[in-house]
């Protein structure tokens, strides 16, 4: 392990290098859920790892690396999102009529035959396979950028609604539209790509 130049011989040895080796790739995967292009996601990860260098080694040796690193990364990601999307246009300006709703529902607001949902019955243990998570990943990548940002902040960064609206410059109705669009599309995508054929 590399000892930072400012460390004194009597100071606790901080696990910077080991943490960076073990956690850089998962942090990048996580950052890319929120930030594109990849280079900008890499910058956020680098910012988080750099912030580690200014942390007291005594704190780090007792810390849970995953919780600690992803906690810093969350702040680096939201800082970047705030700077980038503060003046976003509204959901309706961005998408106009919601084409997904026109696929799912008829003019009277009822389910269209053929896309109406059936309960997923796949056993729970099959939902922990690499193949299944590859399908989840595919469905996440298919989300339009704006709903994807809102959804990932809510579900993966565990941000509160008000924080998401402030960070991305959204009104509450826009937030609702984005969340609804994301959850509907992900359910439809998982149904079409995994659960179909195994439903009641």
């Amino acid at each position, binding site marked *: 392990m590399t000892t930072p130049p400012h460390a004194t011989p009597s100071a606790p040895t901080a696990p910077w290098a080991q943490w960076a080796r073990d956690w850089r790739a998962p942090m990048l*995967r*996580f950052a890319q859920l929120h930030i594109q292009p990849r280079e900008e996601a890499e910058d956020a990860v680098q910012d988080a790892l750099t912030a580690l260098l200014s942390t007291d080694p005594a704190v780090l040796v007792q810390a849970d690396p995953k919780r600690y690193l992803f906690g810093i990364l969350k702040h680096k990601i939201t800082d970047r999102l705030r700077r980038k999307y503060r003046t976003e246009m509204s959901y309706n300006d961005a998408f106009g009529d919601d084409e997904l709703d026109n696929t799912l*529902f008829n003019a009277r607001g009822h389910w269209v035959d053929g896309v109406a949902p059936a309960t997923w019955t796949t056993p729970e243990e099959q939902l922990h396979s690499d193949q299944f998570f590859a399908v989840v990943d595919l469905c996440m990548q298919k989300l339009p950028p704006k709903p994807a940002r809102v959804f990932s902040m809510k579900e*993966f960064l565990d941000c509160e609604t008000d924080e998401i609206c402030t960070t991305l410059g959204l009104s509450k109705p826009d937030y609702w539209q984005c969340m*609804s669009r*994301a959850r509907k599309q992900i359910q439809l995508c998982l*149904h079409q790509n995994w659960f179909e054929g195994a439903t009641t």
Partner: protein
Amino acid sequence: MMTCKEYVFKLTSGQLEEADRLERFWAGQHRLMCRHCRAFTRNDQRLDGILAGYKDQITRADDQAKPD
């Protein structure tokens, strides 16, 4: 009477979690009458567990992801 489109929007947007008792009552009435919306609701609840597993998988350290 609430339509399927309105019910699904309230559910997936998160509005239903913050709704008052009357709104929740009408949503419950709609679920009772519509098997498609009951199925959608069950799947939506299951989605929370799926997303938690997905988050855990992508944030797993590389040495934990390797086979023994």
